[in-house]
């Protein structure tokens, strides 16, 4: 990665870590107010859910590389480099086409919610949901770039050190 891209990537990671940290703290506030001082707050749940939504789509947009996703790559890695390039290209073009085709309708869906506000914090829902739009555009950009690089002869899986395994199972 170029220094500028790397810098942006680090800041995107900081944002994701921040979203998670605030969500965690809000949860603790909720537990404290509900069980310890017996004065439950209404807004904590909504904050957590909003941060969770943002964490997923922000993270998927900016801090998950192609290789960080859950994949079934047995056939892919059994193939020769030439075939792999073609498979990677098909993948990139399909994802690009799918998200691009749905983009106008996605935009309509999100902007439709400018008339509604969230339950307790009264935030406009188009703002809450806008993170999905950010995610869709980031995916389109990322896979357009990948398709372009593959067409220009880039290695299909020229990657740096992979990240730690995803620990959810």
């Amino acid at each position, binding site marked *: 990665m170029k220094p500028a891209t790397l810098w942006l990537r680090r800041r995107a990671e900081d944002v994701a*870590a921040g979203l*998670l940290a605030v969500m965690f703290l809000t949860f603790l506030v909720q537990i404290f107010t509900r069980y310890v001082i017996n004065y439950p707050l209404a807004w904590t749940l909504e904050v957590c859910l909003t941060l969770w939504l943002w964490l997923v789509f922000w993270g998927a947009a900016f801090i998950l590389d192609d290789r*960080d996703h859950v994949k079934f790559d*047995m056939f*892919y890695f059994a193939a020769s480099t030439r075939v792999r390039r073609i498979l990677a290209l098909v993948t990139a073009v*399909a994802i690009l086409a799918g998200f691009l085709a749905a983009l106008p309708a996605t935009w309509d869906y999100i902007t439709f919610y400018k008339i509604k506000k969230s339950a307790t914090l009264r935030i406009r829902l188009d703002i809450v949901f806008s993170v*999905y739009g950010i995610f869709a555009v980031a995916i389109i950009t990322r896979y357009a770039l990948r398709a372009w690089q593959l067409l220009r002869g880039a290695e299909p899986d020229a990657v740096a050190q992979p990240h730690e395994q*995803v*620990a959810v*199972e």
Partner: protein
Amino acid sequence: MISLPFGACLIALFGLAGIGAPIALSMFVAAILYLFVKGHDPGLAAEQSIQGLYDSFLLLAVPLFIVAANIMNQGTISDRLLDFCKAVVGRFRGGLAQVDILVSLIFSGMSGSAVADAAGVGKITINMMLRSGHYSPGLAGAVVAASATIGPIIPPSIPMVMYALISDTSIGYLFLAGIVPGLLMTVVMMGITTWIAHRRDIPAEVPVPVRELPKVTFRALPVLFMPVILLAGIYGGATTPTEAAAVAAAYALLLAALFYRSVSWRGLHAVLVDSARSSASVGLVIGSALIFNYIVASENIPNLIAGWLAQTELSPLAFLLFANIIILLLGCLLDATTIILVILPLFIPTCRELGIDLVHFGVVMVVNCMIGLITPPYGMLLFVINATTGIAIKDIVREVMPYLVALIASLLIMTLFPETVLWLPRMFGYQG
């Protein structure tokens, strides 16, 4: 029977996922294709995934359990647990392997993830086994892989949270229902280990003198206390499972930062970034599975399957065995998250039709999916251990076979005798 739009959707999904596209993104693309061919609003893909994630209080447990597991893998929390387990079971034949299994059992009461267990504390026990010179790399890897499957069976459990989401069952009862099966798996695996140790003449560790036991236990006490806090919180009715997840993470952080002084700000930042990455990855799979499930439901597929199975007049037991075989086979090829979120919903209406208890079904299927984590060619735990220790996958696979047989035998017991699963939740008032 299968409509054209749905056929196109399936072809796109299997085609893309099969050539190595990210599974979550494949589901998005397949769903978008379905909506276009069907002539529906393609914005539904966004709607289903946004609403599904934004509305589910239950799912908040997932990132919190991930944070808790990652914090516990930092620093000396696992060291103290290891000392304790060594003092307790190190004196038996195959001592270090027994230690690993006991550690996995206790660790599983704190983390909800098999992969976190294998990558964290499992990596340490593998090194201990290899250093002792009595264990082949394949055997060390196999013990850790097999014992890590207990992680999501004993509560807390991320896979069970996902099952609760798709089946509308109580997460509290699901968690309780996992305890006896988890203990059963532990006992069975310790037995297999003893047998292997006898055959290969693997010695016990130098026994820790009994008079040192209180000291070692005392040092590990704060760690051992964690599962107690979690379970007491949930079943004492004090907190919801989601809140318990937050308490667990906070407790782990408190221990690591204040008590054991093993986490720095820098370390904490790394834990948060790693956890955020894992959360985003699994969250995206959940979000995309929700769209896919919406499509499957609107095509009425689960009811078609239920109707078709009703015609064959399968008995509930025959259906359970059939489902087990299918999921075991799929477990060789797919990851557990995908199976739970995408395949299991297809079976739920049939279970209802046949009067199969959904808590029983859920625990059996989660155990089944965890066995899938150690079955080649696609076994997440095999990959993780290979990645963290460099032990060849084929060596682990060869040595894991006896454990695999034992785990499948345990699975059969849980399937045939629902009481093994349902006894404990019924003690706590479950009406199933």
